[in-house]
């Protein structure tokens, strides 16, 4: 099927603070072992983490490019202090790389240049999409809470504008950002003296309710779901709406296998039910959710008819 062949599989930026070697090895394995079309590197959560992996950017990008994988640098999702601002300015000044903007400061630097818009940019409607397209945006990853119904309109409009669309289909769901670091707070520290304690939690820090129920996941200034987004059943419908790229958000378990499963579903080699069963066995140790897509509570799992 022509439509399927055009669909791209992407690896989103690593949201958690993994040691630099772990990140590098992760990307090397992606390059060597799985057929993905695009990988987003770059730190999107915390400017303090940037110096640790920055030195590996070139090496990783070279390896991925050699495997015929597009490399896109994602910018910080929250830009506030001087350090954050300098990081974004520096990345956006580099004419030789592709960039995904995650806040309006990046949009300023990238005005008139071809770039992607990230999921933190709040592209909810066709008006916003038209504006961004005029500013140079050619590819947009939609916010995770956007319901499938809204994708119909956005998908139709994207074709007129020559913009391509992407959506996250796997991994913990980004739910909120803050100026405060909740990882530091959990250890009775503040952001300025955090000692990068977030490195202890490769899939984030689990928060449970007082009733003992797993609820949310803390990742520095970010709050994510406890549940793991799984839209493997919805991808067909999303393709029909005009979504042409599907993003897997890295978790610390075997993402190679996860990516292979999604690739095989896109290639029609296995069906969604089989992929889902295998993801449940080998994926993140958390229940699946797909509620946002179906306009239900985001934490819910809606059975497919």
């Amino acid at each position: 099927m022509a439509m399927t062949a055009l669909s791209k599989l992407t690896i989103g930026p690593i949201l958690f603070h993994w040691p630099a070697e772990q990140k590098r090895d992760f990307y090397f394995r992606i390059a060597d072992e799985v057929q993905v079309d695009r990988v987003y590197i770059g730190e999107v959560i915390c400017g303090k983490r940037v110096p640790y992996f920055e030195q590996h950017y070139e090496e990783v990008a070279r390896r991925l490019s050699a495997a015929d994988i597009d490399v896109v640098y994602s910018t910080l999702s929250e830009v506030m202090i001087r350090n954050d601002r300098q990081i974004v300015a520096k990345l956006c000044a580099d004419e030789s790389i592709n960039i995904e903007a995650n806040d309006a400061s990046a949009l300023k630097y990238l005005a008139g240049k071809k770039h992607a818009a990230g999921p933190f940019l709040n592209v909810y409607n066709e008006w916003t999409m038209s504006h961004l397209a005029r500013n140079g945006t050619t590819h947009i990853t939609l916010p995770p809470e956007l319901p499938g119904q809204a994708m119909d309109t956005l998908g139709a409009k994207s074709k007129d504008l020559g913009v391509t669309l992407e959506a996250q289909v796997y991994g913990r769901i980004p739910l909120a950002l803050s100026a405060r670091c909740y990882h530091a707070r959990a250890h009775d520290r503040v952001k300025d003296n955090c000692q990068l304690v977030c490195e202890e939690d490769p899939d984030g820090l689990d928060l449970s309710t007082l009733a003992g129920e797993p609820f949310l996941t803390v990742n520095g200034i970010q709050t994510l779901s406890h549940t793991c987004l799984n839209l493997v059943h919805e991808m067909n419908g999303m393709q029909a709406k005009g979504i042409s790229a599907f993003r897997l958000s890295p978790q610390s378990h075997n993402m190679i296998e996860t990516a292979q499963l999604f690739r095989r579903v896109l290639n029609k080699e296995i069906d969604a039910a089989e992929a889902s069963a295998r993801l449940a066995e080998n994926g993140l140790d958390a229940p699946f959710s797909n509620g946002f897509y179906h306009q239900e509570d985001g934490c819910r799992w809606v059975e497919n008819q």
Partner: protein
Amino acid sequence: MEAMSMIRPELVCPAGTPASLRTAVDAGADAVYCGFQNATNARNFSGLNFTTAEMRGGVDYAHDKGAKLLLAINTFPPGGKTDLWKSAIDDGVCFGVDALIVADIGVAEYVSQNHPDQRLHLSVQAGASSAEAIQYYCESFNIKRVVLPRILTVKEIKAIHDEIPCEIEAFIFGNIGMMAEGRCSLTNYITGVSTNMDGVCSPASHVKYEEDKARNLMTKLGDFTVDCFSCGENAGYPTVCKGRYLVDHREEPYYAFEEPVSLNLTSLLPDLMQAGVTALKIEGRQRSRAYVRSVVSAFRKAVDGYMAGENPELSGLLALTEGHRETAGAFGGKKWR
């Protein structure tokens, strides 16, 4: 304090209902902000907000008394549903509102293309937290004023002021959300109602209070327990970012995000005014008329006092804060983060 060095700031006050609008204007508000009874504004609660007829009347009342009316259209229309936002904008412009407070790039785009003379303010919900981000909105949509996120220190506000071409409005009193505005889907995650798209945070329709055998009161939002209070304690309204939770390495539950406190920048007012803040915003469209009257009157006196070079007494405001506990939030310094 040099009274001469400051621009007289505009006191921007909440008007959840037509009655509150009149109360705020009569108590000395320079401007009131309000929204329509639908998803186009970020305080879309039942019993709040204005019909189109009431909005027209509100503009007239405010203007007759020399006050401004700022209309909040500060949510993010989902694809295919922009008509509701279009009507709200067109009505607001037609009624002669003094500014539209917008957050969505698309909404700003619609206004600047269809009503190029309409004054635009950038809502806190846009989350523009750096000079470059604000510049982007100003250059793209001719934004005249930015409402700054509640995450910056006074020093940072001063630095931003020097780099942007528009006025600054800052929150000084009221409820303080912990998450970056316009970047929070926590309510939607557990209730199916979205803060960004529906204008609702912690909807009352999804709140439950359940008592256990030991008479502890559990407060729940959706199916999730957000906090628990023993019988002597005052149970707070369940908001995800002000709840108590457990993590493996701590023995006791803790406020993982923030304690139930309110923002009170009374003591920083002169600093904010000298940092270049020219509009001071009071949160609380969901609060009673009595609250609006007390808070607006107190700040009216305070601002007038500071402008006259005096040091006004404002300690009475603490009684009006959430749980009677207050914070200067991020404004006080970097340790808050």
